[in-house]
């Protein structure tokens, strides 16, 4: 077959920050001369080609422009610079069930939504049973969508989008929604699309998924293309960048000036290294650092990550917690009460030159804390304090 399914040349996208945006004639007149609009480039000079039947993962830190790139490729946003060419029918799973009307029944919404996505009535007739079947909504299909649970809503949205029979599928993290069984079903559908030789580009935070599913991966950072190639390499590049790497000093300032030796989670009351904790428990994380005499002062950044390397919370030490001059040091992060999270957590530790930005060393320590207890969702602030101990001080 050959040929490119997606071609983006020199794509840039500028947003004008909204706080100064004139949205009425009055403001327009008032702001006419001040021209105080602030520009923000969400994408800069991105070149990307995706061949037919290729599956490409799009990864990068939050705010790196992944979703913007997908929207530009989907034809929802117009690029400020450069050009985009996509061959064939696009299905963009940016938000499931976008455009559903709560007043209409599931059946009516399927017809309307599929029609908006470019299907003819005959095509929808042919696919209808399969859509309902996939969404597992047979008994409710003639109920108004406003009475659906959020899970049902999302399932129906995915089912419709998956039956659009796309040549190019753009997926934005939607596979993370719904319960586990449904997420697995969605992934199976993606695998089916792959087998059928369709082109898939998807954004994900699940870095493990990238190596499993993709032929290629692209790393974006601050709107620029950082890397384009082997998924495994892309993931390690990103992990190194985020300071969540498994290998010591993977590709980063690894001149051994200052190194992270180990990290332990201990019970500050009982003493020893411990894995199991309960929500609300007091715990301490000791980070062992070793450096050469010429080593500079450094800060420590510790990220507690959950499944798929999803960051749960971040702790940053005071400036210069590791003094200059090397030697072996232990920095203790003391958490008086572990927040209401549940599961198995890993630690990502990065050593940053004090007052600078360059990462001296970064390491990831897998599965160091297991927490039991009631869990809630969402971001949270965690109280903690740090202190510098000499290695001998360790109790």
């Amino acid at each position, binding site marked *: *077959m050959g040929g490119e399914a997606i071609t983006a040349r020199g794509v840039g996208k500028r*947003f004008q920050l909204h706080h100064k945006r004139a949205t009425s004639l009055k403001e327009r007149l008032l702001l006419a001369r001040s021209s105080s609009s602030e520009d923000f480039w969400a994408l800069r000079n991105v070149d990307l080609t995706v061949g037919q039947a290729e599956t490409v993962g799009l990864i990068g830190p939050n705010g790196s422009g992944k979703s913007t790139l997908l929207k530009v490729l989907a*034809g*929802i946003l117009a690029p400020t610079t450069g050009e985009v060419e996509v061959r064939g029918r*696009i299905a963009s799973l940016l938000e499931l069930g976008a455009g559903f009307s709560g007043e209409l029944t599931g059946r009516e919404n399927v017809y*309307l939504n599929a029609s908006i996505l470019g299907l003819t009535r005959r095509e929808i007739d042919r696919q209808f049973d399969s859509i309902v079947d996939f969404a597992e909504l047979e008994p409710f299909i003639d109920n108004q969508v406003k009475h659906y649970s959020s899970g049902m809503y999302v399932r129906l949205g995915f089912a419709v989008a998956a039956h659009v029979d796309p*040549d190019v599928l753009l997926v934005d993290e939607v596979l993370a929604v719904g319960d586990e069984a449904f997420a697995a079903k969605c992934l199976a559908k993606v695998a089916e699309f792959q087998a059928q030789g369709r082109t898939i580009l998807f954004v994900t935070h699940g870095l493990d998924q990238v190596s499993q599913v993709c032929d290629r991966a692209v790393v974006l950072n601050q709107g620029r293309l950082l890397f384009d190639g082997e998924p495994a390499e892309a993931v390690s590049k990103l992990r190194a960048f985020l300071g969540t790497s498994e290998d010591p000093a993977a590709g980063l300032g690894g001149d051994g000036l200052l190194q992270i030796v180990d990290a332990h989670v201990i019970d500050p009351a009982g003493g020893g290294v411990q894995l199991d904790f309960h929500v609300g428990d007091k715990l301490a994380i000791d980070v062992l650092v070793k450096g050469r005499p010429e080593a500079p002062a450094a800060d420590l950044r510790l990220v507690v990550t959950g499944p798929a390397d999803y960051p749960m919370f971040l702790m940053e030490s005071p400036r210069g917690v590791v003094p200059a001059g090397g030697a072996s040091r232990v920095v203790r992060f003391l958490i008086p009460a572990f927040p209401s999270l549940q599961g198995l957590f890993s630690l990502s530790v990065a050593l940053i030159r004090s007052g600078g930005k360059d990462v001296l060393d970064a390491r990831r320590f897998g599965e160091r804390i297991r927490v039991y207890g009631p869990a809630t969702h969402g971001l949270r602030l965690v109280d903690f304090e740090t202190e510098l101990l000499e290695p001998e001080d360790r109790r």
Partner: protein
Amino acid sequence: MASAADARALAQTRVRWELLANLVRKDLKVKYKNSALGFAWSLANPLLYLAVFSIVFSGFLLRGGVPSFAVYLMSGLLVWNFFATATMGATGAVTGSANLVKKVRFPRIVLPLASVGFAGVHFVLQLAVLFVVLVPLHPAAFGAQLWLALPTLAVAVAFTIGMSLLASSLNVRFRDVEHLLEVALLAWFWLTPIVYPIALVKERLGELFWVYMANPMAAVVAAMQRAIYADAAPIGKDGVPVPVLADGGYAFYLRWLGVAGAVSLVLIGVGLFTFRRLEADFAEEL
């Protein structure tokens, strides 16, 4: 393979009748969901108007100057209502579908067009009801002059589409358009010969009557009245002919319909251009 893919890609960006019909159907369904009489309400609307104005102006309460005033009113009011509801609906059509516009690729131009379609469905049905009532009430309507309604409707639809395209896209950029239009339509209503006899305007303005007729909706409404109300100067209560319409022939109406039609085509051109220009930024502005 490539050309098939291109055709399928086109289906996502081209305006398709089926999609337009589906959107109109959705609006109708949403509007009449949970109402027992549903559509009947919209059909009853012109009948109620007819009844009320027939009684009020029959000499029972007021001595109106225009014979069969209710028929005169309805022949102009229905087409005005079509224009006004379509334009107002279209103005909020893109902003009201923000979620869709921001997340899905589809031809956005169907949104204002669906508002025109929605108003059009009501218009056609109300017109049908009016004609049924006219059989006993105003048989004069069913003469050769009724053919004039066809070019009139064509111009009305063209003008409405032009206004809708312009208003819907501008409203995304400046939300003032919605409020501005509301006020403008009120003034516009009184600048159009719907509730007063146009003959009166012609008499008062004299040489300057052309300024009044330059309003495309005045041309449309006047022609609609000629088509349905038919008689330019019907015999009043006291046996004297009362001048109501501007002209008893066809040339006057066709000429002004021609002007309004030309204005409409230009407006559609401007509307399309504006819509296409602003469309690219819809997803950002919403």
